[in-house]
């Protein structure tokens, strides 16, 4: 699969193909969409299990759900302040969707939907547009003073305003590129070293011993990828809350 004619084919893992037979072909339902549905279903089941039980001393599943909930709740409270409480469901949904996307991608034969710029850019655009709409709702036309800091000399306006607008637009790009690039880089590295194992393993009697080295690297990389999966979901959520803070408080 990875080795075709002794070459390293690290990018074919990101190709989309329809699943679920005729139905999938008819509506172009790819494995990316399938894993999005799985992620949403898993989040729903986790939250339902957490809320249904409601035990005073939580079991394992309930503890997992509660810690995820309280983690994001604390983050939104610290970053946005008390006005941020009503935006908590939004940040929590984004966080769980990204987290499950990253973690499901670590399973063998699974597809990492967060490794497609189309998906991460859409997520970032949703965040960006909602943050802008929230800022407009709360501050009205005063929102546009964000693009020209108080106290700057007026003759600098033709430079500062385009720069600030570009900087504001670049939030969307940096948010999406960061997640996408991290996931792609990690999975490409995993695939490259896994291919080394196969290629070196075929080198006759000494092969298996040499192949142990890339295998060891891959073991370490899998651990590292789990860290990156959590970290990138955390970074995505905390940047969303920082942007919400800017929208709510508007310096």
């Amino acid at each position, binding site marked *: 699969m990875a080795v075709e004619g002794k070459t390293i084919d690290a990018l074919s893992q990101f190709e989309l193909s329809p699943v679920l037979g005729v139905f999938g072909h008819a509506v172009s339902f790819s494995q990316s969409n399938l894993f999005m549905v799985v992620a949403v279903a898993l989040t729903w089941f986790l939250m339902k299990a957490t809320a249904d039980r409601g035990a005073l001393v939580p079991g394992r599943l309930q503890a997992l759900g509660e810690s995820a909930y309280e983690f994001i709740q604390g983050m939104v*409270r*610290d*970053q946005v*302040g*008390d006005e941020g*409480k009503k935006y908590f469901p939004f940040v929590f949904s984004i966080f769980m969707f990204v987290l499950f996307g990253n973690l499901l991608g670590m399973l063998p034969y699974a597809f990492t939907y967060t490794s497609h710029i189309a998906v991460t850019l859409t997520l970032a655009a949703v965040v960006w547009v909602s943050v802008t709409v929230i800022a407009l709702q709360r501050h009205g036309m005063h929102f546009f003073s964000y693009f020209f800091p108080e106290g700057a000399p007026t003759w600098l306006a033709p*430079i500062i305003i*385009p*720069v*600030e607008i*570009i*900087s504001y*637009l*670049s939030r969307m*790009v*940096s948010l999406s*590129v*960061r997640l996408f*690039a991290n996931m792609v880089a990690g999975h490409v590295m995993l695939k490259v070293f896994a291919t080394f194992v196969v290629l070196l393993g075929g080198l006759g009697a000494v092969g298996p011993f040499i192949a142990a080295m890339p295998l060891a690297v891959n073991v370490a990389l899998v651990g590292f990828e789990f860290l990156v999966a959590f*970290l990138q979901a955390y*970074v995505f959520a*905390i*940047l969303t809350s*920082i942007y919400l803070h800017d929208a709510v408080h508007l*310096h």
Partner: protein
Amino acid sequence: MNERNGFDERLRQARAREGLDKRPEGRGNLPQGPWGIGLRAGVEVVSALGVGIGIGFLLDRWLGTWPWLFLVFFVLGSVAGVGNVYRLFMPRPGGK
């Protein structure tokens, strides 16, 4: 005695958590390692530059002024990128 001190501390924390008392405003605690900061700065510069180039290129295509607006927005994008990194290390003074 000890019990009572602990109670006051917990009460204060609980009041702050429920928003009854004012809390000092905390600002982002993103990953602070050298790799975290370096990657973040790089992404900020590249994305601002990309947005600037994109805007300049599209405006040029629309107005037929290639390559002047592209050059202007290239510079503006670089400035915005440097500005992003500056803001990363020197956050806007909080409060106001």
